[in-house]
């Protein structure tokens, strides 16, 4: 940790501890909310967020200001704001860390965002396995209520808001926002057809904005310090803000760091991650979670920013960076990833329900050295077709598969040629 980096979202983070309301306020917490309700109209808050260049931190990277502009803020109640803390994409654990470290950030983010959107009900959707985070959040909500930040007439204004916590029961698909809405309604959490979009007909048929936890946490900071400050946090001109990077895989240090958007991958791997473990060499990484295409060593100098990563053939995604060393069989890794997506398919559409298990079996054959060149051709055909799935889940699965074939095609063919894995037992 050689470098000085701005500490915004992790300003109050202490190992193993959860920041209390007092600590949060000492660090400037709820200043954004105070400013918003006292000085700014909802439209002005929306404007600040649009100007900040904030992009969604949940994986898709959609500009938050644009998403908010679709929301019918002056429609009659009920209007819902939902924080998406399903966070089940392998390699991604930043939202859990954020809530455990400093839950009031999410609370404040929800209140300010609800104020900006004119939402009168907010829900935090939290995954089954984040029970500790859910409890920390509930404590924070109680503290916020007690302090007048939440409930009727927040800080003496006309604005009122209640926040619920919904504990889920374990499925990755609920991270998809329309599946999440079905889950909240107590229906089978299959994704919904769009249109209508959640902004028009979301939870219980009412306008709904679903936002990632980290995205919401950024909002009060933008309101408190201004959009220019936020943009200035990034290391690339087109980027904005800091980002929580959760490191995992074959690194010496697998922790979650807050770093400026645009920090080069090499710096993340070598400095923050302490380099590839056991003195080995970098072979590849998933730069933003299990659904982002692999990058190989040629991409180490790419700045970790939405646009730069797209240019490099991948995506920033959730910025969960999973690194693989040079002894890793990428076919085996892809097999594991496809197994995950096949198992997490909701089973609604054919490419995902039937296609992914077939891809899984094909990869298993190849991995075991029983595959043929026909199998490889067949895999290539699958990518554009499975990409025509109903929602993004199966499309996400095609990220690693297509990059396996593009970047590590020789390694795949080697399995066929030798009739076994060229790298031995992983």
């Amino acid at each position: 940790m050689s470098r000085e980096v701005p500490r915004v979202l992790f300003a109050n983070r202490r190992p193993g501890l959860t920041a209390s309301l007092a600590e949060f306020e000492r660090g400037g917490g709820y200043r954004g909310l105070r400013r918003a309700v006292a000085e700014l109209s909802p439209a002005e808050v929306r404007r600040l967020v649009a100007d900040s260049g904030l992009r969604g931190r949940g994986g898709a990277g959609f500009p938050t200001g644009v998403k908010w502009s679709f929301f019918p803020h002056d429609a009659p109640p009920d209007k819902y704001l939902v924080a998406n803390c399903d966070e089940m994409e392998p390699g991604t654990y930043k939202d859990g860390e954020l809530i455990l470290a400093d839950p009031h950030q999410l609370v404040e983010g929800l209140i300010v965002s609800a104020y900006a959107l004119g939402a009168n009900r907010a829900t935090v959707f939290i995954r089954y396995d984040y029970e500790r985070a859910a409890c920390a959040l509930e404590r924070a909500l109680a503290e916020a209520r007690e302090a007048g930040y939440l409930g009727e007439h927040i800080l003496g204004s006309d604005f009122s808001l209640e926040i619920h916590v919904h504990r889920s029961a374990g499925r990755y698909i609920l991270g998809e926002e329309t599946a999440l809405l079905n889950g909240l309604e107590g229906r089978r959490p299959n994704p919904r057809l769009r249109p209508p979009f959640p902004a028009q007909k979301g939870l219980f048929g009412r306008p709904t904005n679903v936002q990632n936890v980290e995205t919401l946490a950024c909002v009060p900071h933008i309101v408190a310090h201004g959009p220019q400050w936020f943009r200035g946090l990034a290391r690339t001109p087109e980027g904005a803000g800091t980002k929580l990077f959760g490191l995992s895989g074959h690194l010496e240090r697998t922790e979650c760091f807050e770093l400026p958007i645009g920090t080069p991958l090499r710096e993340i791997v070598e400095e923050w991650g302490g380099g590839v473990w056991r003195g080995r060499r970098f072979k590849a990484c998933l730069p933003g979670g299990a659904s982002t295409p692999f990058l190989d060593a040629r991409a180490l100098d790419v700045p970790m920013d939405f646009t730069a990563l797209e240019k490099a053939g991948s995506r920033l995604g959730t910025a969960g960076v999973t690194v693989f060393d040079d002894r890793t069989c990428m076919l085996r890794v892809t097999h594991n990833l496809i197994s995950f997506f096949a198992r997490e398919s909701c089973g609604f559409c054919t490419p995902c329900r039937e296609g992914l298990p077939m891809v899984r079996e094909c990869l298993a054959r190849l991995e075991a050295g029983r595959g043929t060149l026909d199998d490889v051709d067949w895999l290539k055909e699958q990518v554009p077709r499975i990409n025509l799935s109903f929602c993004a889940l199966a499309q996400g699965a095609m990220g690693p598969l297509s990059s396996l074939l593009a970047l590590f095609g020789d390694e795949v063919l080697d399995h066929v040629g030798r009739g076994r894995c060229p790298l031995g037992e992983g």
Partner: protein
Amino acid sequence: MPTLTIDGRTVSVPEGKTILEAAEAAGVRVPHFCWHRALGALGACRLCAVTVLDGPQKGVRMACLTPVQEGMRVSTLDESSWNMRRSVIEWLMANHPHDCPVCDEGGECQLQDMTVAGNHAVRRQRGRKRTFHNQDLGPFIEHEMNRCIACYRCVRTYRDYCGGDDFGVLGSRDRVYFGRFRPGRLLSPFSGNLVDVCPTGTLTDKTSRFRARPWDLEEASSVCPHCALGCAVIPGGRYRELLRVRADPRPQPNDGFLCDRGRFGYGYANRADRPRQARLEGRPGTLAEAVAALRERVEGIARQHGPEAVLLLGSARATVEANALLSLWARRLGAADPVFDLAARRDGAARIFARAAPALRATLADVRQADLTLVCGADPLAEGPLLALALRQAARRGAAVRVIDPRPVPLVCEAERLPLAPTLVPEALRFLAGGNGAGLSQEVLQPLAETKRLFDAARRPVVIGSAEGLGPDGVRALLALVAGASRPDRDAKAALLLPGPSSFACARLASAVPNAQDLRRRLGGGKIRAVVALEVDPLAEAPPAVTGVIEKAELFAALDYLPTATVGRANLFLPSAGPYEQDGAFCDFAGRLRAFARVLRPGTPILHTGKGNHPPRTFSPDVPGGDAAPAWEILAEILGISGGLSGARAEIEKAFSFLQGLAGLRADARDERVLPGGEPPAPPGAPAGPEPAGLRLLLSDPFVGWEPLSAHAAVLEVLRPEDAVYLNPAELARLGLAPGARARVEAQELSEIRVARAADLPPGLAWVVRRRGSALSRLPAGEVFACRVAREEGA
């Protein structure tokens, strides 16, 4: 109207339509599984991939989800969408069993068609296929989950379209399971639609399992005979056995759906005890002998004792042609009109409605499109089940559904009910039409005023009643309500549920004013010497005062295909053909004539004659049990009309001008001809009799157990309701009856024992659901009678 081209064909469709719908209109078939005309798009199967060559979003798109745009150019033939469709088939076939030889869907399986169309022949997938345990879904539907391709049509049909809540989607990922919480009979009265909508052999008709390949079936366009709605059906049979009934997929009139009574109630045709041979004074004979005897004896009695000695009984379930020829026979004999309905009140109501202006008579499509529906004195699920389904479609589009009825009328959609004594329902209708609500209490008037506001604001309201529930007074009020509410910008319509598929035509064939008093006089005068029952069972349906006379008649002739009490007692019996065994026409509840074509010739099924051995080894020009003839043919013979059906229809058109057009109707094309309105009967001179004091008995019909055809279909017996008498809880307590206790119910000198049950009824009312064969069920439904209900001691 955007114009686009699909595979080079140009087509214009309304804004908002999808590529798939446009392709259908252009005659281009886009392969699909989950899309269904009545259920709409879902986007799950991904089979309908097409390529948009020119348009806002180029590339491979799902045809069912992509709205059309002006100038769009679409191809279904280019390589990329073709490849996608091939892959979808490959994915689906990876786990699909190759049990097509023993699959009842084989030959009419969409998956099979698409597999062939997609050129998929080699399974690349290795390893074991996915398997599931099946559920016992009851006597109607066979479940074979291994064949499922998860198109979700079944759930959307069962839950969304039909309103059931006991069948759904379980599990997830590649183990999605369509079934029930626990094995058991599907409870929706529309469960059979699963058979039609399922594109594979996952859900098939259990009643015809393993009996025939689809291409071996004899099929024809027919009209359902199980109620007056006139649903379009395609029955199928083989080896002289009726094997199944499916819905005609075309949208009109029933939107491609059927009720389980219409679908599974066909067993009457195949019964081993079906009367198939003519009988003369207890002696078996040929049909020709019996026809000659019938003519001679009736004509003889008319000559000897005068035409008033002849009583002809027409029938709601006989064809329009048979009933018309019976009328013609009465004319020739100089006798009184046939009695088409022995229930005088229901008959009177039907005769009024049958003369209403066509524009006021609602069809099923009108109900589906309604923005407000009122159900007054009618039980659609029992009296015309598809009407209940149509109500649900209206409700799904946002229409309010209000029920005004003494009974807790079950529906398959949300409805608000106003419980009202049966005699007050007509007054409620008059209030809605602007009347002062005389005789209605304040607590009734308040919700009624709210309903009136809704009615006044609605643009396409439909008011639904039933002939037996409303009676003549109620039907007058019903028609006055909708006639008064119709304006150029506003289409108010009425629907009246009638007992059978020819009821409307019979009511029109009869004079405008019922001859109930005349009938009583004739029956009481001891003059009746000849009774001819055309496909009707008066002994089960009429009270003792009537049946006593009929049974004593010198000639008691019956034409029928059901083993009824009447057939058993008749001294001259002529076997007639069932509705699917002849060409003919029915007339639906809205006065629409529809022709149907013969599916099978009548004859004893080979299953019975060969006792399972096939084929018979003896050769004979006669079909065993094949003597039966259509009733119209028998009557034409008696009347000396030649030329087969067209000859008979020509005579009928000549005699009854309102049946003009009957001869031109084509069954295959589903032609229909709307009966014109007529001179409405004058309001009655005599006021209705006084309301009986004390406990009153109200009878009504069940979904299954009364309608004569399905009551003779053994497979439907599980749907028969319990023999219960329903009272409101306070009444039950007053009578000292615990729910479940045995109670003796007496009315009109009839009596039987029933199980006492509590129900949400107005005070003073005992409600009995009829069952064919029970004593009390001989009383007409809809009317109220003074009655006694008392605890029955002993076992």
